[in-house]
């Protein structure tokens, strides 16, 4: 797909490719890491309070943790792939 062309249409005036790409790269670690931390924390909480201490029934917390981790993983992989692809294209052009 023609990325340059698409960004041109978005901008209408000039090709601001680098600026957009920077925003994407800066935010990507946050978008990827935080859901994993939350997912693992939910699983940790289930393990400690349900399995170890036997305080509460937190089976849903375990399921939610797994949903958050795997749900994010499904969409994170293509994003990382597209970023790698795009940055390698940029290197070749340079």
């Amino acid at each position, binding site marked *: 797909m023609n990325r340059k062309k698409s960004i041109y249409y978005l901008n209408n005036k000039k090709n601001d490719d680098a600026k957009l790409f920077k925003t994407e790269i800066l935010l990507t670690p946050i978008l990827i890491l935080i859901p994993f931390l939350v997912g693992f924390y939910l699983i940790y909480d289930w393990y400690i309070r349900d399995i170890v201490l036997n305080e509460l029934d937190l089976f849903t917390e375990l399921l939610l943790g797994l949903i958050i981790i795997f749900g994010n993983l499904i969409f994170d992989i*293509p994003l990382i792939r597209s970023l790698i692809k795009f940055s390698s294209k940029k290197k070749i052009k340079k």
Partner: protein
Amino acid sequence: MKKIVSQIQKTKKKINSLSFDAHWYRRVFHTFGASFLFYYMLPDEHYLNQIKIIIPVFIILIAITLELLRLKKKISSNHFFGLRVYEKDRIGSYLYFGIGIIILLFFFPQQIAIPCILCACFGDPIIGEIRNNYDKNKAILIGFVVCLVFFIITWYNSKIEILILVSFIGASSAILSEIKKIKWLDDDFMIQIIPAIIILLLIMILNTVGFDIVFEKIIYPGLMPW
């Protein structure tokens, strides 16, 4: 005829190239929304309860300000990666998404809020992905199953008739609000709020009829280390 076909192909290419660049970024932005469930894990302490209200409201106010500045052309849309072309001159869907999540976290019980947030975070991108790669009917069917699973997971402790009723109505209303597009309200908002309101009304009606439905906590607040 050939000219028309080539013109259609050119237009399709244009549309594809437009949706490609920020495509996966938008999807990940959606799935990231599930992290807001962490809100329920924050300890129940007096001063923290105030912070739990102030910080989300503050974030939304910042987002509203940014959107207003963007719409007034004070900030370039180039700084907002992932915006769709049609969002250039209207409120970005990320703001609707955020407002939807905050309304659910503040005003709805966990058993309603959690599946609705999950439907928006995972159901919506899954439906979009299947619709792009296969066809609309498959997308609706799989989207319905995914949303149904979210409702079953959060209501599995309830009586079987309540579980079935709530799950089917919740998943159907989520799918309907995703399919039905309203010009001035984004589907990211609708997919969260419409099922939540419908289920809340349903529970109220069932309670007046004689069912005794009590909302259960699903995620318990963490304990302070001191």
